[in-house]
């Protein structure tokens, strides 16, 4: 039987290749994701091992609280260093200090790197002890005076800078010039994972960090013969209990590696979701291929049964084919995974996210997962067709081939309707009943609706294919008629082929609706809540900002009526880690309409906080209540609720005055500055007044309200484009499925095509008929997919109404583009099968056996 299997495979190379490709792409993406994340992981693991290679212990402040962005802890006083040095096992110790934002501006005035999107722009205190300094001088020397710095080699080559050059460095303070006295390497790398680095003298670093006589932590080298554990014990004994945390070098290395591992985990999960989608699509295609093959080989398989093969042997022969396809495809897919990992890096870098990596890490587990997933998926997809094949009675050898034995209409309809109804109920419960974990309901409901749609699809595939093909009859005449009827003749085959595309397209539709609604909601929120003329932004994302000196300068302009920066920082309120926003309350009262329901922004003071109505209602807070807020710098501070407001889209749920922020946070950096002009000042005059102030801040950008909205939309577009790129994978696999189905159909219709050619159909007409059949199938999948996508999009927007999705935008233009692209996908998918059909030998096609 194995021989029959292998000969069958060799005889049908095209279907073999197309089926294998579907598995291959899925496996390639999955293993590519693993290779990519493992490679990044290894890069960072090596990095941290390197940083802490000589560190035997670290002394730092105790954890204040945890947020989504890591642990928040206070700094340690510089005097701790002296205490640590007295501990018997300590050989040397040095205070480490990191500055979260120190961006180098090159001599053309362009900032080096964009920390909003990629690696951060960091600053550090230079440590004289080479054992504890992760950096080493590559050329030049260490900084000696406060206006001297060393920068990393990577930034130097990016900014075309060298020792002796003078550069501006942007920090929370006004920009100031420094002289580069040295270039440093990080271990053996030119930069720590792509970050740009400025190394200051320790004193200057403390000044820039606003950390006078403070360090982030103290790293310690043990005397020879003292183990890391012993050192840790001695340090704990020598320092006041409760005010410090002591870790061994191994612990701190592992902690850093784990943190990166955790962050990479989210990233890996995100990519894996797309790999799973691709593999799901592949399942449809493999299932469909094997179903068609079994139907076409009914006679041959029945003959095998008639001459004595058992049902099990027949099943084994079909499954055998699937195993060979699955394993071969997975092997090739694994090799493809390495390519994919390179492409992923390129894709992320194309949208502006630079990810450092060195070498390529292919772990045995990656190979194992790739082979098992690819093999198992192929076999699972082939099980049902194989089971059907084993139940072909020997007598079928003598009967005409029954191409499709349809499931009974009523059974299918009943199943589809019940799955759909249950799915819709679960989905609506998730959307409208405000239950905890509602997204789980929505997700399960959506999956059920999707499954229901797939079950139902063969029921209306014929009608829908005819309806979609109706215009073709008129436009393309007989060719169009044939395309339309061919698309409609095997509804189940057409439906499953289209369903593969439907999956990808529904997600494209969903994301499109979600994004357009998000953009519409943000635009609406900006219009409704901001009454400002200009906004100064500092690029996007965290790790970047503007020195408050710029905001102050803007507020002093005579043309400006009111202005305030927005800052934000982590705090813990009511047990939850939060980001809270700070603004000037008087200016905010004039410029922002957050829908204050009680209290007043304008009269807030440093001990005040404003909270959203949602939070206040759910916790029973009222104006005048004091709530404890935990800050990393100052610990628990009771703040009085001085205003309650409704709209949280712009500034979130907690707002404190700048005065309060200054008391409780170390880093004072503005995220954005909002300005409202004096009455009578034209926007042009306003711009002319503000623009000159921005010259020393090359990251600052001046936006009016319309431009600001566009910025927000552009940020969403970046993410959406990334998702589109990843979904393209599922679409490509679905296109392969269309090509495969068409190739098999063409083979099945050899005689028919021969007859058509005999009675005068030209090759071009044959190609055209196959092409249009393909377009109909593609459009069928697209129409179903967009219908589902539109519905899911509506559902999620409805569910997120309270989270700020106040607007539903159907984006008809973009959806129309999806339809056109789908038709093009259909045309491309038909290319090979159409050529094949046109090349069929007429005589072989019409000769009777």
């Amino acid at each position, binding site marked *: 039987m194995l021989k029959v299997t292998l000969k069958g495979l060799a005889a049908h190379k095209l279907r073999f290749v197309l089926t294998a490709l579907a598995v291959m792409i899925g496996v390639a993406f999955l293993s590519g994701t693993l290779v990519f994340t493992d490679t990044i992981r290894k890069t960072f693991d090596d990095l941290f091992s390197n940083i802490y290679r000589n560190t035997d212990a670290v002394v730092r402040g105790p954890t204040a609280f945890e947020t989504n962005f890591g642990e928040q802890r206070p700094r340690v006083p510089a005097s701790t260093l002296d205490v640590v040095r007295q501990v018997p096992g300590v050989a040397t110790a040095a205070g480490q200090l990191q500055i979260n934002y120190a961006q180098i501006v090159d001599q053309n005035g362009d900032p080096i790197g964009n920390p909003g999107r990629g690696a951060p722009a960091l600053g550090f205190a230079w440590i004289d002890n080479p054992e504890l300094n992760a950096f080493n001088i590559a050329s030049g020397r260490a900084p000696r005076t406060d206006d001297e710095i060393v920068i990393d080699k990577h930034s130097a080559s990016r900014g075309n800078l060298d020792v002796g050059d003078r550069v501006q460095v942007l920090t929370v303070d006004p920009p100031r010039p420094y002289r580069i006295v040295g270039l440093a390497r990080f271990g053996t790398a030119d930069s720590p994972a792509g970050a740009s680095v400025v190394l200051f003298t320790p004193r200057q670093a403390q000044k820039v960090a606003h950390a006078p006589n403070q360090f982030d932590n103290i790293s310690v080298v043990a005397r020879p013969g003292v183990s890391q554990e012993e050192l840790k014990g001695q340090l704990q004994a020598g320092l006041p209990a409760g005010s410090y945390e002591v870790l061994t070098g191994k612990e701190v290395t592992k902690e850093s590696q784990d943190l990166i591992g955790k962050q990479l985990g989210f990233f890996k999960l995100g990519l894996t979701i797309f790999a799973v989608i691709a593999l799901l699509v592949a399942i449809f295609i493999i299932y469909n291929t094997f179903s068609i093959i079994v139907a076409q080989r009914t006679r041959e398989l029945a003959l095998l049964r008639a001459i004595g093969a058992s049902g099990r042997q027949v099943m084994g022969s079909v499954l055998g084919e699937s195993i060979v396809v699955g394993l071969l495809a997975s092997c090739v897919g694994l090799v493809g995974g390495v390519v994919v990992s390179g492409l992923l890096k390129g894709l992320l870098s194309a949208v502006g996210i630079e990810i450092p990596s060195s070498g390529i890490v292919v772990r045995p587990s990656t190979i194992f997962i790739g082979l098992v997933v690819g093999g198992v998926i192929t076999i699972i997809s082939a099980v049902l067709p194989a089971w059907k094949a084993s139940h072909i009675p020997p007598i079928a050898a003598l009967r005409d081939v029954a191409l499709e034995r349809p499931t009974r209409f009523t059974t299918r309809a009943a199943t589809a309707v019940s799955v759909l109804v249950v799915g819709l109920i679960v989905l609506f419960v998730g959307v409208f009943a405000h239950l905890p974990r509602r997204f789980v309901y929505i997700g399960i409901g959506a999956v059920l609706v999707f499954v229901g749609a797939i079950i139902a699809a063969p029921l209306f595939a014929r009608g829908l294919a005819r309806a979609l093909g109706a215009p073709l009859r008129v436009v393309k005449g*007989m060719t169009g*008629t*044939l395309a339309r*009827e061919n698309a409609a003749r095997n509804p189940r085959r057409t439906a499953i082929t289209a369903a593969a595309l439907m999956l990808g397209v529904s997600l494209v539709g969903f994301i499109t609706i979600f994004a357009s609604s998000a953009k519409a909601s943000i635009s609406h929120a900006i219009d409704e809540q901001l009454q400002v003329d200009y906004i100064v932004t500092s690029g996007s994302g965290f790790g970047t900002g503007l020195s408050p000196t710029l905001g102050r300068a803007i507020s002093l302009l005579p043309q400006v009526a009111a202005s305030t920066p927005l800052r934000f920082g982590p705090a813990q309120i009511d047990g939850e880690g939060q980001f809270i926003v700070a603004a000037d309350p008087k200016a905010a009262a004039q410029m922002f309409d957050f829908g204050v329901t009680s209290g007043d922004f304008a009269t807030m003071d440093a001990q005040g906080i404003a909270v959203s109505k949602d939070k206040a209602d759910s916790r029973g807070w009222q104006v005048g209540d004091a709530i404890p807020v935990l800050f990393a710098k100052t610990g628990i501070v009771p703040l009085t609720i001085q205003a309650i407001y409704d709209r949280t889209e712009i500034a979130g749920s907690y707002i404190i005055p700048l005065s309060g922020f200054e008391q409780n946070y170390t880093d004072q950096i503005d995220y954005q500055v909002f300005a409202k002009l004096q009455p009578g000042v034209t926007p042009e005059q306003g711009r002319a007044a503000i623009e000159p102030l921005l010259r020393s801040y090359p990251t600052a950008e001046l936006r009016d309200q319309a431009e600001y909205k566009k910025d927000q939309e552009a940020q969403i577009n970046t993410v959406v484009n990334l998702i589109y790129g990843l979904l393209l994978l599922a679409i490509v696999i679905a296109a392969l499925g269309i090509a495969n189905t068409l190739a098999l159909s063409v083979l099945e219709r050899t005689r028919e095509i021969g*007859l058509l050619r005999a009675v*005068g159909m030209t090759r071009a*007409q044959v190609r055209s008929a196959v092409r249009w059949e393909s377009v109909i199938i593609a459009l069928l999948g697209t129409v179903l997919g967009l219908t589902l996508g539109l519905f899911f999009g509506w559902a999620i927007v409805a569910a997120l109404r309270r989270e700020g999705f106040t607007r539903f935008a159907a984006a008809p233009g973009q959806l129309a583009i999806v339809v056109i692209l789908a038709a093009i996908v259909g045309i491309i998918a038909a290319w090979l099968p159409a050529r094949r059909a046109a090349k069929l030998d007429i005589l072989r096609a*019409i000769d*009777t056996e």
Partner: protein
Amino acid sequence: MTATSPTTTTIAARAEKATKIYGEGDTTVRALDGVDVSFERQQFTAIMGPSGSGKSTLLHCIAGLDRLTSGEVWLGAIPLGQLSEKELTKVRRDKIGFVFQAFNLIPTLTAYENITLPMALAGRDPDEEWLNRVIDTVNLRDRLTHRPSELSGGQQQRVAVARALASRPEIIFADEPTGNLDSKASAELLKFMKRAVAEFGQTIVMVTHDPIAASHANRVVFLVDGRIVDEMREPTADAVLDKLRQLGD
């Protein structure tokens, strides 16, 4: 042989030194070995011969479905060997009608659509009056909206004949048109074909191995080992059967 000096006006199709060789080297098969034959207009000609005599090959080559190794075939004044694949397709579509033994119809199209298929492929409208006459002749008026799977074998072949007639081709080629039919349906189909020649002035060339079918023709050409060996005018079934026995010896 006959028609040594025919004028093109009375000859619908003609083969000259038609040779078709399959394979290479030791496995060479001469399916046609220098066949000279003409088919007159408004005549019903049958081609007969034992299995492997080359009768189907001859039909395929004259009908522009296959190409000769050497020699030439003319359809009216058109030398088919000189035509490109595309031109040949158009000749088949516009000037030739086909009736095959089986798989004559496109399963997804109705009887009417099958009948008008060549014209639809050419993007031409059928001549309604003529079409009605053809449909009535083959007695398919009440079956026009049916698909092939809803028609009997005899009806299917009648649809095929109607299709061959509908575009008023120069010549109709039929390859064992009654091969899959019972005797009653066969007789009916042959009657229609005969009427098409007698009443509509059509030209039909039919390959068959059935002496009864051949007896409906005006003329029978006998083929053995790729050569024309004999022919018979106004044949009867018995005479054809005798001749076949004689050739078989």
